[in-house]
């Protein structure tokens, strides 16, 4: 399988504090890669390097090599706006815009000029909602405020919103941590569907979730990448002792 992201010796500082230290990780295309590890281990930081969302944090410095399709993510020639159109993101807390459902989904295509006409925009919105498995629930109330939906629906709105821009990669930062088990199950099922079209990188606290949804798993600890490999292998037969301890709940 082709590598979507290639990273080598990535170091991230927040001011003087080192958040992640010397991480080299390749992420395969059309695959789900999950990043696990205890809080503060740097997995979210690493995720946010992949679409340069760290740029918005004061005092954050990234060094090392980060390539998306062999193109340097942190090169001066690359506009983070273009990067983020290719690498979408879903956040921990559902954060729909306080606007209508339709406007939430339509915003991305609008600013990127993906739709030439109103009808086309309408199609994009409906298609995105369908791919996010939300269409049946919201078909009749596209003009209602997205903030009036349930948490799980809001999170799927955010996924639909990310899909609408037609990215290549979707980054998910603990997308289910604010949701109940049923909504989580719906989203996990959705991830499986989406992995056919998109490369997905998901940060999760739930090891069960990582085991269920991902093809590959990376275990982070204290800013270092401890182990990276096939999910099945990580969970059944890890090479490192620390990984073993973490997945069995002895450290965390």
């Amino acid at each position, binding site marked *: 399988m082709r590598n979507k992201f290639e990273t080598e010796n990535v170091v991230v500082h927040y001011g003087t504090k080192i958040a992640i230290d010397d991480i080299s990780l390749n992420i395969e295309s059309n695959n789900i890669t999950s990043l696990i590890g205890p809080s503060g281990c740097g997995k979210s930081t690493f995720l946010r390097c992949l679409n340069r969302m760290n740029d918005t944090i004061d005092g954050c410095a990234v060094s090392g090599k980060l390539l998306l399709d062999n193109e340097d993510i942190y090169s001066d020639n690359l506009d983070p706006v273009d990067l*983020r159109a290719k690498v979408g*993101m879903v956040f921990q807390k559902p*954060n729909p815009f306080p606007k209508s459902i339709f406007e939430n989904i339509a915003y*991305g295509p609008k600013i990127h000029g993906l739709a030439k006409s109103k009808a086309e925009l309408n199609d994009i919105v409906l298609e995105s909602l369908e791919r996010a498995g939300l269409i049946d629930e919201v078909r009749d109330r596209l003009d209602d405020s997205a903030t009036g939906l349930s948490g799980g629906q809001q999170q799927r709105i955010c996924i639909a919103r990310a899909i609408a821009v037609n990215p290549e990669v979707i980054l998910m930062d603990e997308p289910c941590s604010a949701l109940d088990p049923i909504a989580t199950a719906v989203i996990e099922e959705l991830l499986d569907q989406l992995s056919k079209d998109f490369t997905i990188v998901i940060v999760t606290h739930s090891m069960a979730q990582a085991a269920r949804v991902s093809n590959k798993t990376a275990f982070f600890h204290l800013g270092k990448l401890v182990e990276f490999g096939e999910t099945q292998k990580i969970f059944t037969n890890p090479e490192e002792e620390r990984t073993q301890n973490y997945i069995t709940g002895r450290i965390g």
Partner: protein
Amino acid sequence: MQQAYIPLKIQVSGEKLLNSSGAVDAQKALLFNWDSKVKKAFRENFPEVSSRSDKKELNRLISSNSGYDVKQFFIKNVEAFNSETLIFITASDDVDQYLKGRFNTDIPEEDRRLTDKQLKWIDGMHSEGLVKLKFNKNFFTSADSREPESSGILGAVVGSALTMFVTVLLSLPLAVMASIYLEYFAKPGKLTDFIEVNINNLAAVPSIVFGLLGLSLFLSFFGLPRSIPLVGGMVLALMTIPTVIIATRASIRAVPPSIKDAALGLGASKMQAALHHVVPLAMPGILTGTIIGTAQALGETAPLLMIGMVAFIIDVPTSFTSPSTVLPVQIFMWADSAERAFYERSSLAIMFLVAFLILINLTAIILRRKFEKKW
């Protein structure tokens, strides 16, 4: 809100004043002695008065501007020429005050503004119904005057409105842009800190200092004319901007950062994230800040004194560059005047100012309601 009026029958022959098209010839109207026409008509009420000094005292009972008023009346109503027309002439402010019971008759005659003889005439006129208190329409339709009876508030109201318009137009966009810059684009460092400290300090600078700045910058350096709403608005905008910036930044920060992240995550530029999402959500707070700033600016006198907006202006301003005054300055000038009749006009103007403020605040509350979103 009332004013004493004296109804007079006046007949003017149109022969000498009208031009061929039937309108009043401006040149001829200027030369025509309207004053004597009014005075003559007025004296007909008092056939017994004949001596020169008595006539003079009698004339003082009507407003010295009545000739002008009559002229304006005839220019507007050309059909009134050549027939006896009933015109309500404004009585002088002393008559007005006396009829309203605000004239102290206990002080000795030589210290009074009205002599015993004049008082007797007024009493006589009053009992015969020749002088009446009527609603003072003039107060709402004209600008300032030396004579209390013909002074009005419209000039100041229009001046205030024009000035506020300039202030809001300048301060709101500038302050919002400055806030967006400081919140989203400014790199933290010495320069940004310096700007921030200065903005916070500027909000506490006495307003007269802004007036001085306006005087030296706009009037001396740029050579703009004095007393105009444009400059007044610019000076007040200088004063308002720090207040609005502080409020705007606070409300931008109050918008959940997740909204900004959401927009950035979709590939919106910082500017798009700010303008499409954060600023609309911060709008209620921004508007509140602007209202507070504008309300403060509306009641501000000191900086306007420095740029010549205390001028005595008898025309209602028609543009941003015509000389004008504003409500608080008008109140200040009237409260300062010697004539007793200005006292009630100041009170009325103060009520007007308050009403003006309530109006602005109401508009703002309605706007806020409209923009406010729940999540």
